Structure formats: structure tokens, C-alpha cells
């Protein structure tokens, strides 16, 4: 931006900020136009005039009449009158003529004052992040689920100035978005004929970013669930343009490849804010870093989550939070008392700001059920087994644990050579859109042997004509690990799932112990909401604020936006020494923040 244009912009911005805080004062100039706000700042065809003391009443009346104005009222304040302008007469011209009248001491618009904007969404009272009155979040599972009034993003006064952020496209790189959800359908990015479903999917490599897991829908709702529509929740923005970029699968997993494609798509399609409520890799990811730098070169702000491991990110790196590009803001989670959430990562050098991240209510992709299985009835294995090997084994050390084991003595002993041990069970997954199989396992299977996991939609032995989910030799290094698989294609009433240990005649190993077996299903719909906690929830609150700032200030660069977010925040003791700013985001203060002018030079003459 050239210096002269930058100077003109800074003057206009400074005037706008003055109006945000200004009391009625002796400033007889036309007020700034707050286009996009909830309503106008003054009555369009009225002015308030203060005549000089001792001006006769007939002189006052004549002064008003000479301009074809009407005297509405003598205000209950000495020498003040309320004047109605004539048809088609502009405010600026009216102010000028009264200013030049020798009998007039002062003139101003008749400003409008109102209670701060409050949306009428039915669940608004549960959105403590937007307005904290100390309310109890009835669906919240994080303790505490009530807090201290005033600990929120200070959005209500901000909404007096802007609620519509739809001029700024926000890309949500996540599990996708249920773009039909009742509170999100009107907030989705218009991708035209090329992207009719409001985004793209790099997990299945198609143009349908439908959320099959829920997380991305929740994030999208925090940013821009339709506000003031008498249902559901509201986002930071009452109106938004949200681009759905599916880069995480049904188990919440994505990769560098899916994410960088998502970032590059978002940049190419004109997004100016990217939300990434995800983390991973403690190793520096150069390719992902390059993609964020590409976003920076294209003036895109990237908001990312600090992570939920209760770690110091300065010591135990989590990327992308640990990247240092200036267009990146990393967000920690606060609870309802504005303490650092117990799960939240922090980092005095790597995490920038805090935002509410516990017991956050927002849209969800559908209804969920969970099928659990403990492998036994009355202590007897109730799965179908063939070829021997598999057994139900209750392990008792403190809390009893139900384990599907091979060999039966696992973790003692070793499995048999030259074996084809199969065990499976049928589950009714009919009517579901998504199914995710999860379990924990300790595995020690030698090279040359194979532990296979299969399913079969028509039921029966999944190792006779079924589909393999995974297979091969493996070890978990002597400890238990979590596993998740997409079981969605098996959505029938007769879905069978099974494990097979296939061994050769050489060295054996300790075997397999499986526990915590469950199948989570989802049926997509448009009316579900969910309350969850995480830095994933804090992140889109800041992304929504970034969109608000860029919509309010169309000439803002990513640097201006990031500065306003960081410097407009509110100092919070829990974040001192835990973040670069020590601040929680504050929407109203960020709107009012004045960025230092750049590109200006001063010449003393």
C-alpha cells in the first residue's frame, strides 16, 4: 500500500475509533458511518442546537425557520433545542450552516443510544464465552461448569458495531462441516458451480466436505452459527461465510498432505482467515510450514490450537502452534473462571492468547450412539471362535479389565505356531451414516506372522470374503495403544467384525490383548448440538474475531488483524508467563485498537 493511501486510511480509522468511545462533545463534524453495524448512530433528520445564552426566543425560531427546518422541542436543558431538518437535507450540510450562525454556540447530531445488541437465539444463555453471567452450563462435563460473570469475549458491545462478517471467507480445515445443519446452512461459503457443497474433501478426494464426525461442524458453529434467528446458538459472527475443508477423517486424523492441500485450496479460493483446530508432530514439518508461509504471502491469517496435553509447547513442541510465521496465532483454552483449562497447553514463547475453551455449546453433525462389548457372558467368551487361541480373560489389578486375548494366558506365554486363530462377532449398524471402531490393544506379533482386523457387511466369518481394515506383524512396545478405524461401509444389520492371528512355523511372540472395544455410530441430521471442551473450541472464537476485524476494516492486512487480536486482549493472570501476550481475546477492545501507521514519513519544515 502506498504511503499516501495508508495515511488517508489511518486518518479515517482514527476518526472511527474516536466515535466508538466519544461522548457527545463539541465536535461539529459529520460522524463516521458505521456501515454493517446493528443500526445507525444518530437520527438522520434531526440536530440538537445550543444557542448562545440570552438569544431571544424569536431569534431562535427565526434561525430555524430560515433554513426550512422545524423546531421540535425546547429541551429541558438551557439554550438547547431539537430541530427537524427539511426533506432531503443532509446532516453534514445542516451542521455546517448552524456552525456558521453567530447565534449558535454548538450543534450536533441527535445520537442514538440503546441497550447492547443481544441475539434472540434460544441457546444464547448457555454461550458463556460470548456472555458470561456466571451461568451453569447444564450440558457441560468439564468442571467447573459455572464461573465468574464478566469473563467472556466482550462481544455484545462489539455487535453494536458489526455482526455480519460474511465479506470475509473463513476456511475451517477440519473434519468437514455438516453444511445442512439448521444453524449453519445460511453461513456457508458460496463456492459456485465448481464447489456446490461449500468446500472440498481431501480425505476422500472429492468435493463433498460433509462432516462425518462432528468436530468441524462444532468449530464452524462457533465461528458463524446464524445469530438472532430464534434458534440454536450464535457464532462470534451472526452472519459468516464459512468454507468447509475436510482434511481430518472420521477418527479425527489427518496428515501433512491433506492439510497442506486444504491450506492451498483455501488461499486459492480467497479465504482470508484459516482455522486449524488440530495438532500433532513434535518434529518440525517443513512442508506444512511452507504452506503457512504461502498463506502469509497471500495475506491470510491462520489461527491454530495450542493442544490439549497440559504441556508447555515451548518445551514439548506441538505443530502447527510452534511455527513462528507472523500471520499465525496460537490459542490456549480458558475455563469459566478464566483460569487456564486443566488440559490446555501453554507456552510463553509459542502460544499467543487465550479464549474460552470449556463447556462450549455449538452445532454438531448428527446423533451418536456407542456400542460397547466386553467379550463375555458370565465369564465365557461370547464371540465366535475358530482355530483356537482366542479367549476371554479378565485382568484384575485394581479395576477389573475385560480382555480378548491370544494366547489365553496373555500377557504371559506366547502364541502358537502354524495357527489360523479367528474370532468375530456381529453388530447391528443399520441406519447409521458413520461408524467408527475403537479399541485399545497391546500387541507383540513377530515378523512373518500377522494380526488381521476384518469386517464383513453380510455377517459371518469376516476372513472369508470380508474386507481387511489392517493387518500384519506389529508391536506396541510392551504398552497399550489406542486404535480407531472407519467402519462406515459396514452399516448393515449384520456387520461382523473380527480378529485373526495367522502364524507360520518360526519364532512366536507374546501375542495380543484387546480391551475397551466400542463402535461409535452417527446418524447425520440438521438439528443436533453438542457441548465439548478443548483448545479446538477456543481457536474458532479467535478465528471469528479475526473475520469480524477484517470485515469491519476491509483494508486491514494480516498484520493489522493479528496486532488487533493480540494487543486488544484483556490481561488475565492465568495467562501471564504462559502466553506471549498474557491476554484473553476481547472483541470490543480489538475493534477499537488502533494499529500503528506504517509507511509514513514526517518531514520537518
Amino acid at each position, binding site marked *: 500500500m502506498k504511503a499516501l493511501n495508508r495515511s488517508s486510511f489511518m486518518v479515517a480509522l482514527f476518526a472511527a475509533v474516536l466515535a466508538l468511545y466519544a461522548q457527545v462533545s463539541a465536535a461539529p463534524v459529520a460522524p463516521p458511518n458505521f456501515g454493517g453495524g446493528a443500526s445507525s448512530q444518530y437520527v438522520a433528520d434531526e440536530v440538537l442546537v445550543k444557542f448562545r445564552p440570552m438569544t431571544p426566543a424569536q431569534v431562535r425560531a427565526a434561525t430555524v425557520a430560515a433554513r426550512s427546518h422545524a423546531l421540535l422541542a425546547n429541551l429541558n436543558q438551557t439554550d438547547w433545542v431539537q430541530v427537524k431538518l427539511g426533506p432531503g437535507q443532509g446532516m453534514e450540510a445542516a451542521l455546517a450552516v448552524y456552525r456558521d450562525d453567530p447565534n449558535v454556540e454548538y450543534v450536533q447530531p441527535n445520537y442514538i443510544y440503546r441497550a447492547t445488541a443481544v441475539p434472540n437465539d434460544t441457546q444464547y444463555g448457555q454461550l458463556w464465552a460470548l456472555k458470561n453471567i456466571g451461568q451453569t452450563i447444564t450440558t457441560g462435563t468439564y468442571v467447573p461448569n459455572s464461573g465468574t460473570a464478566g469473563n467472556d469475549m466482550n462481544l455484545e458491545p462489539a455487535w453494536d458495531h458489526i455482526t455480519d462478517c460474511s465479506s470475509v471467507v473463513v476456511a475451517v480445515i477440519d473434519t468437514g462441516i455438516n453444511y445442512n445443519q439448521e444453524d449453519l446452512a445460511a453461513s456457508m461459503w458460496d463456492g459456485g458451480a465448481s464447489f456446490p457443497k461449500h468446500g472440498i474433501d481431501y480425505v476422500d478426494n472429492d468435493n463433498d466436505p460433509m462432516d462425518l464426525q462432528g468436530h468441524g461442524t462444532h468449530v464452524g458453529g462457533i465461528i458463524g452459527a446464524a445469530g438472532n434467528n430464534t434458534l440454536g446458538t450464535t457464532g462470534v459472527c451472526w452472519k459468516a461465510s464459512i468454507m468447509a475443508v475436510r482434511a481430518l477423517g472420521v477418527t479425527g486424523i489427518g496428515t501433512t498432505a491433506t492439510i497442506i492441500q486444504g491450506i492451498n485450496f483455501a488461499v486459492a479460493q480467497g479465504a482470508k482467515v484459516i482455522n486449524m483446530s488440530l495438532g500433532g508432530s513434535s518434529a518440525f514439518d517443513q512442508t506444512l510450514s511452507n504452506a503457512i508461509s504461502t498463506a502469509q504471502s497471500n495475506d491470510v491469517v491462520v489461527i491454530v490450537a495450542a493442544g490439549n496435553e497440559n504441556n508447555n509447547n515451548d518445551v514439548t513442541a506441538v505443530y502447527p502452534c510452534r511455527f513462528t510465521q507472523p500471520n499465525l496465532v496460537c490459542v490456549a483454552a480458558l475455563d469459566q473462571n478464566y483460569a487456564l483449562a486443566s488440559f490446555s497447553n501453554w507456552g510463553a514463547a509459542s502460544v499467543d492468547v487465550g479464549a474460552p475453551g470449556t463447556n462450549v455449546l455449538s452445532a454438531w453433525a448428527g446423533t451418536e450412539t456407542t456400542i460397547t462389548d466386553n467379550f463375555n457372558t458370565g465369564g465365557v467368551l461370547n464371540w465366535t471362535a475358530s482355530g483356537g487361541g482366542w479367549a476371554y480373560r479378565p485382568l484384575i489389578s485394581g479395576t477389573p479389565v475385560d480382555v480378548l486375548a491370544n494366547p489365553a494366558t496373555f500377557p504371559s506365554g506366547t502364541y502358537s505356531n502354524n495357527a489360523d486363530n479367528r474370532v468375530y462377532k456381529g453388530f447391528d449398524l443399520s441406519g447409521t451414516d458413520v461408524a467408527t471402531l475403537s479399541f485399545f490393544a497391546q500387541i507383540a506379533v513377530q515378523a512373518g506372522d500377522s494380526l488381521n482386523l476384518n469386517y464383513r457387511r453380510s455377517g459371518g466369518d469376516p476372513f472369508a470374503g470380508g474386507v481387511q481394515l489392517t493387518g500384519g506383524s506389529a508391536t506396541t512396545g510392551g504398552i497399550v495403544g489406542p486404535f480407531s478405524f472407519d467402519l462406515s461401509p459396514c452399516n448393515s444389520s449384520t456387520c461382523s467384525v473380527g480378529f485373526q492371528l495367522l502364524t507360520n512355523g518360526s519364532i512366536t511372540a507374546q501375542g495380543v490383548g484387546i480391551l475397551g472395544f466400542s463402535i461409535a455410530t452417527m446418524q447425520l441430521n440438521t438439528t443436533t448440538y453438542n457441548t465439548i471442551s*478443548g483448545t479446538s473450541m477456543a481457536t474458532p472464537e479467535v478465528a471469528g474475531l479475526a473475520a469480524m476485524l477484517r470485515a469491519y476494516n476491509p483494508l486491514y492486512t494480516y498484520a493489522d488483524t493479528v496486532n488487533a487480536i493480540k494487543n486488544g486482549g484483556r490481561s488475565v493472570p492465568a495467562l501471564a508467563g504462559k502466553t506471549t501476550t498474557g491476554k484473553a481475546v476481547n472483541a470490543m477492545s480489538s475493534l477499537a485498537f488502533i494499529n500503528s501507521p506504517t509507511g509514513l514519513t514526517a518531514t520537518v519544515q
Partner: protein
Amino acid sequence: MAMTTLAAGLACSQPSNNPAPPNRDVSSRQTRMPGEYLFTLAAEAESRVIADVYGRFGIKGIRDLGHNTFLVTFAVDPGPERIASVRGQNPQITAVQPNFVYRHDERGSVQ
């Protein structure tokens, strides 16, 4: 024995006579996708330079991700060290790294 500790990682290998399993969001606490690597090539370089150097490791597929970046999948994972050790054989291959895993962890109660 109480099995409640989460694993730090999982090492998997595929016997050569078993078909490769479909990619179904296999997840433990692995930090990278086994057998998958991201190659960055010099501008105007063609993907065949990858096959020229790495073909002997058994390439299953090469996918162009744009911005001179290619996702290469190997039938058997050579391991990051071995992948990195031969990169210098062609200067048109400017960078190579594992395909790292990213995730979200939030859960809650659906109403």
C-alpha cells in the same frame, strides 16, 4: 495387569505376501503415516526424478499435491533415515520428509 497406559507409537510391517490394507484412518499414537513421504521438487522438475532415485524401494504411487509437492507411497516403508540418505542423488529433489499425522482430541456429551 492393568492395561491403561497409552502407547507412544506403533511399528508395523507388511509381509510381502499379504495385500496392503486399505487406508482406513489407522491410528494409534503414530506420528507419521508408514510408507508415506512428501517430496518437494525444484520448480519445473518432473516427478519421474523421484522414481529415478527411489524406484528401487518399491513405489506404490506418486500423487501431485501442487506447489511442487508430491506424496509418494512405498509398498514397504524404507524408514525416514534411508529415505533421507539418498535424496542428494538428484539435486532436483530439494526436500523430503515423512507425511506427519495430525489430529484433534476433543470429545463431549451430545445433547
